[in-house]
């Protein structure tokens, strides 16, 4: 069996299992690791029971619905966004689907480490008529984030509403950018459909109040990137934004997204991207919210033949950040790179679900996930490379790496390969560890104070994540932040 999946990387900490879950599956490989500092042993939690449950698809519901779910079920009847009247039928559809599906539970596959019950144990009804938009859009917030160095057009959304006053769009031929709320009818080029199996994406469509619509015409290599600031503030509500970007054949575009704001609320931001034949989309996302917010982020991308998607994230904010990244290859010889750096402290929890679907032949994917956790922070990663039958020449490589700075921190990682074709090169690996004592001493022996030395090694650990960012100023801003992070300094 191992011979069929060349290049699978084992892991000195983790367990490697081969499970034949379906007749047609050539290989299903999962590294299933839970790590705490000072404990190199691996608790293989998903044992036989987990496999059985998976096989029978038993979904047990908790008796009591979460307060957040109750609020989201009740709010729709009285919810309307006049500017998005044309979306109402789709919203109703999405809501109906959500009503059936409900929120995931700890028993739902891909949500077992998410602690949804802890994070959503309060109502967060959708915000329909945001107040104090201008007060919330503080200059300090809008100017001191990590993407501020980008020379870009700016679209600002405050608590789910487009802020014309704070936005600044530069005209570029062949590039159309407008807020969803400014579209009089459904644009026929935009695909706003939700992912049917993702409760938060269904909620996102049902309760979306605005978003960015972006279209880059065929062959246009856009020179002005777009920076979208998703600002949300306040307590006890949820804000839902739905962005769409289409990069037509042979075109290229850069999209920056910053998640900013503060307060105990839920922000749900879903970005759908279609990268047509031979096109290129670069996306860089940061989350710099304060440690009381909950963020659900989704990227759903279709990448067509000979197209490229480069997705980079630096997530350091929020109480809980769930990132769902779903990429489908829709044509041959396409390429994606998705790199994430997570810098977490105190009780922050970042939770990533990544699925790359190699549905077409000769596509290349590189997924790098680097998570640094201090104090009681928790990082979880569930990544899947799916190789469809006939996907000849697939080249997929996924790595999840945790750096634990405190004994109370926790890293859970489950990189998986599901391979239904035998002419592929796929690899996945997972490592976890503490800072290297030899490296620390080497730096200190040259005069670098201990804390600074640790900070340098943290920055070095995540550095490769930013390598693919073309804009040097943005790359340097993210790298410099990674080095400052350990000292507890903010974004400024």
């Amino acid at each position, binding site marked *: 069996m191992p011979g069929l999946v060349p290049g699978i990387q084992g892991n000195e900490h983790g367990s490697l299992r081969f499970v034949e879950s379906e007749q047609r599956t050539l290989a299903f490989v999962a590294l299933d690791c839970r790590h705490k500092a000072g404990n190199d042993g691996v608790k293989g939690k998903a044992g036989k029971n987990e496999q059985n449950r998976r096989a029978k698809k038993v979904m047990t519901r908790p008796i009591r619905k979460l307060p957040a779910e109750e609020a989201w079920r009740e709010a729709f009847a009285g919810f309307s966004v006049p500017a998005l009247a044309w979306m109402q039928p789709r919203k109703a559809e999405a809501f109906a689907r959500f009503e059936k599906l409900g929120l995931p539970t700890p028993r739902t596959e891909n949500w077992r480490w998410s602690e949804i019950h802890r994070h959503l144990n309060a109502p967060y009804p959708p915000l329909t008529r945001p107040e104090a938009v201008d007060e919330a859009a503080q200059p300090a917030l809008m100017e001191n984030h990590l993407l501020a160095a980008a020379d870009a057009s700016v679209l600002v959304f405050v608590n789910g509403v487009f802020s014309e006053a704070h936005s600044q769009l530069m005209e570029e031929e062949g590039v159309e950018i407008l807020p969803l709320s400014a579209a009089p009818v459904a644009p026929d080029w935009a695909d706003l459909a939700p992912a049917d199996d993702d409760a938060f994406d269904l909620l996102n469509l049902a309760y979306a109040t605005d978003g960015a619509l972006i279209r880059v015409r065929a062959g246009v290599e856009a020179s002005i990137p777009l920076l979208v600031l998703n600002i949300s503030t306040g307590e006890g509500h949820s804000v839902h934004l739905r962005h769409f970007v289409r990069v037509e054949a042979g075109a290229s575009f850069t999209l920056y997204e910053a998640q900013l704001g503060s307060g105990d609320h839920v922000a749900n931001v879903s970005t759908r991207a279609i990268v047509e034949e031979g096109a290129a989309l670069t996306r860089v996302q940061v989350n710099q919210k304060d440690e009381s917010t909950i963020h659900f982020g989704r990227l759903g991308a279709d990448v067509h033949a000979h197209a490229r998607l480069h997705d980079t994230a630096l997530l350091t904010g929020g109480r809980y950040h769930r990132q769902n990244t779903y990429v489908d290859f829709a044509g041959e010889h396409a390429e994606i790179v998705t790199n994430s750096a997570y810098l977490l402290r105190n009780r922050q929890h970042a939770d990533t679900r990544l699925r790359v679907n190699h549905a077409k032949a000769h596509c290349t994917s590189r997924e790098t996930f680097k998570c640094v956790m201090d104090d009681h922070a928790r990082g979880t990663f569930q990544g899947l490379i799916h190789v469809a039958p006939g996907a000849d020449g697939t080249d997929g490589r996924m790595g999840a790496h945790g750096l634990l700075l405190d004994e109370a921190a926790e890293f859970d990682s489950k990189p998986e390969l599901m391979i239904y074709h035998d002419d592929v090169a796929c690899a996945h690996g997972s490592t976890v560890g503490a800072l*290297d*004592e*030899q*490296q620390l*001493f*080497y*730096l*200190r*022996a*040259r*005069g*670098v*104070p*201990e804390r*600074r*030395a640790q900070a*340098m*090694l943290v*920055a*070095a*650990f*995540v*550095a*490769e994540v930013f390598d693919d960012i073309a804009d040097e100023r943005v790359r340097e801003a993210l790298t410099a932040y990674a080095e400052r992070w350990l000292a507890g300094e903010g974004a400024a």
Partner: protein
Amino acid sequence: MLLEVKDLRAVVRPEEDEGEAKEIIKGLSLSLDRGEVHAIMGPNGSGKSTLSHVLAGKPGYEVTSGEALFDGEDLLGLEPEERAAKGLFLAMQYPVEIPGVPYMQFLKVALNSQRKLRGEDELSTPDFMRLVREKAQALGISMDMLKRPVNVGFSGGEKKRMEVLQMAVLEPKLCVLDEIDSGLDIDALKVVADGVNALRGPERGFLVITHYQRLLNYIEPDHVHIMANGRIIRSGGPELAHELEREGYAAFVEDAA
């Protein structure tokens, strides 16, 4: 006196569940003054490298008695970075690779951290670049190498040459060279030795730790000490190294026993 070690005893702190601490340095005394080059020679396991680690403050060792004064000041109570800032430099036998940290950045942070700890102004980037370029040129080190991550993918000779570059840039008062000749062919050895010799001067001391007399043909010492079983068992002039080369360690170790 630049370095004064008096009746030093040190143990390796055992890992958890690994039994008792093992004494490695067993009553070692040594005096080294400015302008002097001392060589410490000894067989494997005599405690040479441990001595260098204890002097530099590497975690994992515990000094159980004795003292080490650096420029008249207690060295053993200081953090490794404080020792470095006061002018102690340990050229390591196995320089560590640090992926993700460019060499230039590492050198700049090191130099400016030391200056800051000493209460001096930090060096500006242009001044720093000028300094490094000049020193690197003298050692035949290309600026390209300085753009690479610290020691990653460097050959044994390159790593040691870079240690010498660090010395040249950081200008320490005392250089402890822990088997700087290990893993070097004769050409690389000459380059490294030339670099070290260029740093010799009336204000600087060297403690050269080595297995082999060969290194001492290139870095000529004023004093030679033979170390065995955690102690210096004999001291003398440069001729002692030649005597050792002829007769081997066994004769000396037996004499001492």
